[in-house]
């Protein structure tokens, strides 16, 4: 009697749970590796994505099939985005005394972050779709993905651009800020949060509690302001 190994393998690969299985597995593996090494390039989302792509390509599963089997995770992304309002609210209560410096930095700094990227991209000759995907790169991934899709970019690429931005900001940010003579913890935190979102906030938390708090504040404010005004601005210009 010969066992149908090939058929069994096929049944496993094309089972609706296969996509969720490899996603959960890859994520936990990378998370464990990150906890052990604390290596900043081991961003869980970025590396899990590479592992999952590797498995899909090896097994010959198309993205469309994977996407369908992980539909439930995509549905949960909506309420998770809404839930971002809770940390933002808690952070907002902290800024009473520094209200004006924070708001000014947010508006001008946010504009500079977004416009610098668009201008540079345009100058380097990137096409429209890529530009629209890069525009929200300074904000946290779920928001960036929604905004990119809304203004004519691609959600998947936005997630990756956001991560690259965060990793670069986190690696060079602290040294660059010191070189520019920025020493106040509030200013360092805001700069890291506005330009390098969650990854920057993690680095800011390692500097001090105060820096981390302002980074979290900068990140969530930048997220909401970009989410609301970037689509409006694009719909006015276009």
């Amino acid at each position, binding site marked *: 009697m010969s066992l149908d190994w090939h058929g069994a393998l096929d049944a496993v690969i094309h089972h609706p749970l296969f996509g969720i299985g490899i996603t959960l597995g890859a994520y936990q593996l990378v998370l464990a590796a990150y906890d052990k090494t604390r290596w900043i390039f081991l961003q869980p989302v970025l590396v899990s994505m590479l592992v999952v792509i590797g498995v899909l390509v090896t097994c010959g599963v198309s993205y469309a099939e994977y996407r369908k089997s992980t539909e439930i995770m995509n549905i949960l992304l909506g*309420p998770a985005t809404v839930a971002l309002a809770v940390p933002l609210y808690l952070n907002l209560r902290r800024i009473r005394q520094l209200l004006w410096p924070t708001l000014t930095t947010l508006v001008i700094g946010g504009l500079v972050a977004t416009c610098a990227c668009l201008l540079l991209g345009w100058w380097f000759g990137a096409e429209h779709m890529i530009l629209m995907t890069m525009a929200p790169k300074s904000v946290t991934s779920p928001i960036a993905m929604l905004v990119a899709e809304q203004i004519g970019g691609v959600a998947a690429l936005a997630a990756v651009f956001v991560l690259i931005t965060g990793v670069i900001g986190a690696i060079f940010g602290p040294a660059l800020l010191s070189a520019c003579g920025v020493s106040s913890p509030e200013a360092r935190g805001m700069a890291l949060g506005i330009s390098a979102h969650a990854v920057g906030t993690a680095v800011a938390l390692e500097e001090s509690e105060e820096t981390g708090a302002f980074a979290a504040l900068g990140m969530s404010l930048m997220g909401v302001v970009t989410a609301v005004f970037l689509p409006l601005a694009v719909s006015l210009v276009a």
Partner: protein
Amino acid sequence: MLLRGLTWLVLFQLLGTAINHLFLSMLPGPIIGLVLLLAYLMLRGEVSAPLSEAASSLLRYLPLLLVPPAVGVMVYAADIAADFWAIVGSLVLSVLIALAFCGVLMQKMIARQARREEKP
């Protein structure tokens, strides 16, 4: 507890979807939901226990939820390759510019406010 908070989040997202459909087609539904929830929290002045539990549980797994959409890059490999240096160049330069600019600006603003408070 968790379920009650989750129900609130879903309700706000659905409300956002309805508003997106009716009036604000340029803002995504979950974003409108986020802004509505923020306004609601500001009006109430506190975060209820079920809501805070649901929000922190969901947000703890946010990176995991982001993996499937990110895997979509495999479809866009050609687009990335075509604009590779433009993408890397503008991402790296713009984050460095933004960092330095925000840091210096915020520090100047804090110093100015401190001076003003000393004066009167």
